[in-house]
């Protein structure tokens, strides 16, 4: 079920158009259990490949989770690509931002070392371009099955019968509260 959803929604197969392709890092154990294969591909409908890749890296600088896989950051690119398709002004905003970033890098921001890359992104904080990526990420980055697996959040509970028999009281590194404060479960 989950695998199919991911195959369809997140690991879109190429059928023309620009594509970003990546490989899951070997450390992304939790995510690899969800993914149908180790390689993933994101088809872009509006942005070109280079812009897509740059946005992915800019997003990594804004939200630097060291061990979170690129496959999750790619979901931000996917949502920005969709927004750019739907609204020309978003497309221009992103395109202009990327151009500005490259200009400030003296040509190609992607070839700079990480610290230099970061300081140029930081200099754009507060700009519409930066805010568009930041505010999209705050939802897209954390609202998907792969991120939940990575951060340990368990997502929907109803289909699994809640936590009444699945560890809502399993914390064992502090003393148990007395029954008067926390009655036994029915």
């Amino acid at each position, binding site marked *: 079920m989950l695998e199919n959803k991911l195959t369809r929604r997140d690991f879109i197969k190429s059928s023309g158009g620009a594509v970003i392709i990546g490989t899951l890092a070997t450390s992304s154990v939790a995510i690899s259990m969800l993914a149908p294969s180790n390689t993933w591909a994101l088809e872009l409908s509006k942005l070109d490949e280079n812009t897509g890749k740059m946005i992915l890296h800019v997003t990594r600088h804004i*939200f630097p989770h060291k061990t979170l896989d690129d496959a999750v950051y790619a979901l931000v690119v996917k949502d920005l690509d969709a927004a750019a398709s739907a609204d020309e002004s978003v497309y221009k905003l992103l395109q202009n931002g990327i151009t500005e970033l490259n200009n400030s890098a003296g040509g190609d921001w992607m070839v700079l070392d990480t610290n230099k890359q970061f300081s140029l992104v930081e200099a754009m904080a507060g700009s519409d371009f930066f805010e568009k990526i930041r505010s999209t990420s705050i939802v897209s980055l954390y609202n998907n099955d792969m991120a939940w697996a990575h951060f340990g959040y368990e997502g929907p509970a109803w289909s699994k019968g809640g936590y009444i028999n699945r560890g809502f009281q399993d914390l064992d590194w502090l003393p148990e509260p007395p029954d008067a*404060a926390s*009655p036994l479960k029915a």
Partner: protein
Amino acid sequence: MANYKMNDNDVVVIIGSGAGGGTLANELCQQGVGVVLLEAGKRQSTKSFVNNEWESFGQLAWLEPRTTSGSWRVAKDFSGLPAWICKTVGGSTVHWAGASLRLQEHEFHTKTEYGDIDGANLLDWPISLKDLEPYYARAEDKMGVTRTNDIPGLPGNNNFKVMYAGATKLGYKHCHTGRMAINSRPRDGRASCLQLGFCFQGCKTGAKWSTLYTEIPEAEATGKLDLRPESYVLQIQHDKSGKVNGVLYADANGEQHLQKARAVCVAGNSIETPRLLLNSASSMYADGMANSSGQVGQNYMRHMTGSVYATFDKPVSMWRGTTMAGIISDESVHDTKRGFAGGYEMETVSLGLPFMAAFLDPGAWGSKFTEAMDNYRNMAGMWLVGEDLPQESNAVTLHSEQKDQHGMPVPDVHFDDHPNDIAMREHAYQQGSAVYDAVGANKTYRVPPYPSTHNLGTCRMSKYAKDGVCNKYGQTHDIKNLFISDGSQFTTSAAENPTLTIVSLAIRQAEYIAKQLSSKAI
């Protein structure tokens, strides 16, 4: 279910089906009164609720345009979303967490107890705890509040274990799993809590009380209720004598209808209720309906709030289990030695990963933020909720230009923290952090207020007509067949979560209205 005609002027029209409106509707129907219940939102069910924060938010939240102003942080972080409340049958009782506390005696008399405080528009309630006690008892029974009526408390989850251990280390004496309108045992035809942890998203087991599946079906069973979902009220109308006689509303297709009424009860929550009265201005009521005091929309209160989250070496998994079943109430007293008037409660809270990202530090980015998120699994959290002081300038007003899709001016919500709120928040942040530090927190996070979940005071009750909008039964001072039936009535906010009091006031008001109707006083 009844089906009243538009020109039936014998019905009581209630606007809004949440804690206030939904309860009032049932209580009136039980006494044989015919009710038309107009609700702007759609009707969902325990089946249609979803265990997904953003998806559920889209399904249930009130997302009509609103603006904000003032120096409160919400105006910066969520400029178009001053309040986090519902537009759905059942209102915000679909979202709510279930914490059900009585107000304390002194909180009914803050002007007397606290004295004059600069900038605060304090006023004593025209009722005391004694007046409300019998209604609190009925509300607790109706809602199945734990630790009342021999209903056992809920079992504490991991988040509670952390709170309890820290609280006892600090020497706090009043910490337990709360008084919650959530079944710890099957009761009233509803199941017991399965510890899903999605209390804010609509409770799929129905263990948590909501008017959607308690009051409203009970009212329907009497044959006296005509519930009309997707009916957005635009205006209340009146006759030549000044009495209200009907309400204008738009249906799902945007078509407008005029429902005649013998009496009108407004329960749209504390932003929409005053907005509606202001939008109902006429040549007779130039400043808006029931507004001879000028207080409609003023004294908007949203509680002193904030949250503390803390990270530990080991997992907490705070999202597992009931969202808010945990409370420390030692700080809810009035003790000015702490540097502020009034008190606050500390209650467990948890957010799923998606909402944690949105609310931890709105606007934040960078490694400090990602480090906190990286420790999500090891996080515990509490919500701080305390009394905030009424100020005339904190107000819901009509926006001078912006209109909604029906052409009605949208509400602007203006709020500045009172110095008392700021001092209390600082104290609460310190104590909240101390609770977690006492059990070895690595880091504590002071999380700013969410969009307001508690909205109060914008049509406050008062003894004298010059001081407020309605009397001690919620009947407006100016128009005797117009009632305020939600949290807008609150004269002051008190420290406690407001819903139990809203429900108690609605039960009391229903008795009063039924008597007024039968004696032909209205």
